[in-house]
């Protein structure tokens, strides 16, 4: 067990190193630079600015400098937000994204698995169709439609919660959390339902059911374990994605999280910020994949010692 975790962490570090190297060099191929402006500022001043951020050095030197900084936990300065370092920007935004993402994924997992199981156990019943409808609506109605709609209904018409911002404590979080959980509920319930139906047909479950002995227990213990395998595999990367913030959610609800940086940093060619965000997301992804594999090992003993 410990050996497995140790090996995965070591592999994770190598993966992260590959990601950092790839991103650092490929990112520079994009046209335009962090300091391209509507009009050209005088070359001397542009040189000053580039020199201040070491962008005038050869690429390998810049890379060496960046890696050296990383080893000292320094993610470099932001080129777009001149008052902040990348570390400060992430520290300022992460708590917001984390809070929203955490609750969204918890709600999505509970509701999604619940709906999926209900649908699978009572196929083609009212519950099943309700679950199916929620699933379709959650996927077909994208966040950029349901978000503004929720704002109009719950903030403007009913006045229960604010439209956006972050200055009303938990009330500011309600809409973003609920809207972010919807598509995930849809995915999770569909996956759960699908694999549960599959498992229910398997011979060992059929046998157990036919014998009628402790059918309920068999279901809960064996079937559920098997049925959750693909759901858990989905939850790993999904959680990493959701807790690092959603660009759409944060833009629509004016949340000062880090999700916006994923798009804006690249559009602004804010190289250090792109790197910082990529590192954070990549690192979380690796950690969650390790956790996923551990949970799956717990659900399916056949997978233990393999991975």
């Amino acid at each position, binding site marked *: 067990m410990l050996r497995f975790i140790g090996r995965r962490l070591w592999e994770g570090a190598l993966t992260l190193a590959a990601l950092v190297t790839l991103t650092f060099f490929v990112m520079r191929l994009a046209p335009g630079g962090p300091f391209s402006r509507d009009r050209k500022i005088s070359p001397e001043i542009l040189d000053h600015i580039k020199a201040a951020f070491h962008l005038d050095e050869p690429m390998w030197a810049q890379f060496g400098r960046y890696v050296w900084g990383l080893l000292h936990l320094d993610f470099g300065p932001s080129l777009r937000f001149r008052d902040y370092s990348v570390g400060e920007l992430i520290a300022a935004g992460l708590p917001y994204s984390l809070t929203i993402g955490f609750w969204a994924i918890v709600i999505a997992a509970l509701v999604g698995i619940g709906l999926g199981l209900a649908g699978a156990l009572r196929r083609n019943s009212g519950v099943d169709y309700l679950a199916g409808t929620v699933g379709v609506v959650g996927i077909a109605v994208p966040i950029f439609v349901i978000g503004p709609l929720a704002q109009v209904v719950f903030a403007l018409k009913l006045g229960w919660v604010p*439209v956006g911002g972050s200055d009303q404590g938990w009330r500011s979080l309600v809409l973003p959390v609920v809207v972010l959980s919807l598509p995930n509920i849809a995915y999770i319930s569909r996956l759960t339902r699908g694999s549960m139906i599959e498992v229910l047909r398997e011979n060992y479950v059929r046998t157990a059911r036919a014998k009628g002995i402790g059918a309920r227990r068999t279901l809960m213990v064996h079937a559920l374990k098997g049925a959750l395998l693909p759901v858990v595999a989905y939850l790993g990367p999904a959680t990493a994605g959701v807790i690092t913030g959603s660009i759409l959610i944060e833009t629509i609800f004016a949340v*000062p999280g880090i999700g916006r940086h994923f798009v804006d940093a690249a559009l602004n060619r804010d190289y250090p910020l792109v790197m910082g965000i990529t590192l954070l997301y990549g690192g979380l992804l690796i950690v969650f994949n390790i956790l996923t594999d551990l949970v799956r090992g717990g659900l399916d003993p056949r997978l233990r010692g393999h991975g």
Partner: protein
Amino acid sequence: MKGLRTGLGLLALVLGLGVGSARPVLADDTLDRGIGSEWSSLDPQVNFDAAAGWIQMDVYEGLISFDGTGKVIPGAAEKWDVSSDGLTYTFHLRDGLKWSNGDALVAQDFVNSVLRTINKDTASDKGYYFSSVMQVKGAKALIDGTATDPATLGVTAPDARTVVIQLLAPQPEMLQLMGAFQIAPLHGPSFKQYGAGVFIDPAHVVSNGAYIIKEVVPQSHVLLARNPNYWDAAHVKIPFVKYHVTEDVATELKRFQAGEIDVTYDIPLNQIAALKASDPAEVQIGPSTEVIYYSFNLTHEALKNIDLRRALSLAIDRDTLESKIVKGEGIPDYSFAGGFDANYHGPQIAEATMSQADREALAKQLYAKAGYGPDKPLKLNIIATVAEDAKRRAEGVALMWKKVLGVETDVQPMERKAWLDAFYAGGWDVFSDDLVGDYPGPETFLAYMRPSTEPGYNWVKPEYNAAMDAAAKIADLPTRYEALAKAEKILLDDYIFAPLEIVPNRHLVKTTVHGWSNSAAGYNNSQFLSLD
């Protein structure tokens, strides 16, 4: 430290505390203003953004200031003299000026500000304004490193209450420039002790404006509170001002409607008409200093033909384009530098007085004369940004060229940085271009078209340079405007671009906010506003 803060955030998460303070959003004592995207810096010697400039105008006071109508008014300086040759500006500071911490404010603080702006370690874009636009004596040499003695700079403080600025050439728009690009004083002790980080640190930042910084949350807001040590504090009516980052214009509108924001940064294009009908008193729209024009690529064989360029310009029905397609309340435009400053009587393109039907008839003739027609249609691309109004405008122009002339146009929207890069790369036929003037006067626009300034236009016209050089020597503003009008005529006569519209400033302002006015400069300093 960073780890600690993340840790605390995580702790708050686990405890279910959520984040953010529980302060009510719309307290009666707070003016909530939207500023669009996040400020790039609150460092007064570095900031280059127009919207962050609003925060700076509240927090710092330059030698001069703007009122809501765009008029230059005394700021830290109560009066000033200009030498008869227009080369020396002498500013006299008010008596007894103080920093927010009670320190005395002296003339040298302004000199230090300029020195820090042009210092290469500051890495500020703004240095360009001193060397190239204002042409302050000695600035260029200090920037490119040929001089190192700060005493050679043409900004000096002969005594504690006098600032003298010496220029290399007469600049009749000097005061406008100083308003648009505020020269905020630099408080030496706090900067020395805490470095550039002090400007976002409410505990240590020292300022001289009507407000002081109380709270800064990146991507969210800046909260300001009244500065008791401001010389005119008795007349500052609103106790708190909160600038909100409002990235998404649709969300901003809803926050305005919910009462979370008092003054918006912009209005969604497709809502303007409805809002004007339902709440006319809240809609505030007036011209800015931004002109939009479509540049033709002069290195492309077909577009070297002036008849063709003229035909393309005339085939655009600017009224329909702005009122029915873009719907952004833009003002149809037939000149380049005119329409901003009422004192400038510049030329328009020759056909501006014709009806659109006549213009289109002429366009068809010119198009045929250039050798194109149904059998041999012209093929063009338009490079535009992905911004909603830019896309709509490009689509509209493409539709009109198709309808009137039969030109086949391919609109290529690009994200902003790629669009900027594309201009210099030159793969475009028509470039959806825009220019934001530093002030309403014509010179800021016309100077930009000098062939030496922007290499991408490839326009060679010695007469234009000569006309601009002649104007630059004139210190008297009305005479200088006449000379500039001659230069603009040379520019417009070559049809190297098709001017389309003057972009408006668009704001929604709650009727509880008093003292708001529209000006091209776009400043409404919070100290001049009041709340019910």
